[in-house]
C-alpha cells in the first residue's frame, strides 16, 4: 500500500507548482488557475490524512474523518472564490482593456 507520506509529498509538489504560478504569471486568469492548483493540493493532504489516520486513532469504528468534511468546505469556498475572481477579472478587463495584473497599479504607492 502507498504510505501517507507519499500523498503528502505529492500534495507539497502540487502546492509548490501552484505557488510558482501565482508568483510568476502575469495574466489574471492564469493566476486564478494556479490558486485552484494550490487548493487542490491542500485537499489531497486533508483527504489523505483523514483516510489514513482517522481509523487508527479510535481503533475500530471510523469516527474521525473531519478531513473529508473540511475538504468539502474547501471545494465550496473555492467555487465561490472562482466566481467572484472571474467577475472581478471581467470588470477589470472592461475598465482597463487588459487582464495583465502588472498594469493594475492604481493603488501602487
Amino acid at each position, binding site marked *: *500500500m502507498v504510505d501517507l507520506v507519499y500523498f503528502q509529498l505529492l500534495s507539497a509538489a502540487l*502546492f509548490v507548482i501552484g505557488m510558482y504560478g501565482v508568483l510568476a504569471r*502575469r495574466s489574471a486568469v492564469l493566476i486564478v488557475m494556479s490558486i485552484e492548483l494550490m487548493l487542490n493540493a491542500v485537499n489531497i493532504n486533508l483527504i489523505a490524512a483523514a483516510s489514513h489516520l482517522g481509523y487508527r486513532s479510535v481503533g475500530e469504528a471510523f469516527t474521525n474523518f473531519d478531513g473529508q468534511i473540511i475538504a468539502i468546505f474547501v471545494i465550496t469556498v473555492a467555487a465561490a472564490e472562482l*466566481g467572484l475572481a*472571474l467577475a472581478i477579472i471581467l470588470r477589470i478587463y472592461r475598465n482597463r*482593456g487588459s487582464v495583465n495584473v502588472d498594469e493594475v497599479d492604481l493603488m501602487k504607492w
Partner: protein
Amino acid sequence: MSWILFIALAVLTLGGGLGVVATRNVVHAALALLLSLLAVAGIYLILFAEFLAIVQVLIYGGAITIVLLFAIMLTRTAEYPRITDNRQWPLAAVASVATLAVLAGSFWTKAAVDTQPHNPALTDLANSLFTRWAIPFEIASLVLLVALIGAIIIARESEEGT
C-alpha cells in the same frame, strides 16, 4: 497495484500542474488544469474517498473548467500570448523550490508509517455533515449565495454607466 495507480495519477497531476504554469496558450493551460483536477479525483479514489472523487469531477471537472473557459472567451484572447511571465520568475522558482524543500523535509521526518487508507461509510459522512457540521454547512451555503450575488453585481453592465 496501488503503487502503479498512484504513480500514474501523480504523474498526471504534476504534469497537468506544470502545464498550467508553463504553457503560453491560455486555453491549453485550462485544459492542462482539467487534466490535473481529474487526476486528483483519481487520487481520491485510491484513498477510498469516493464521494469526494465524484464531487471533484462534478465541480472541478464540470463547472470550474467551463467557467474558466468562459472567462477566457469573454476577455480578449488575442492579448494573452503577449502577456509573458514576470521578470522575477527565477526568484519565484527559487522561492518555490525552497518551500518544497521545507514541506517535503517536514513531511518526511514526521512520516506516519504502516497506515492503511480506510473508507468511511457515506451515511456516516452525511450524519457528521448534518449534525456536527450543520452550522458551517449552512454558512457555506450563505457564502455561496453572497458570492454569486456579488459576482453578478460586479460583472453586470449597469445602465447608468457604472
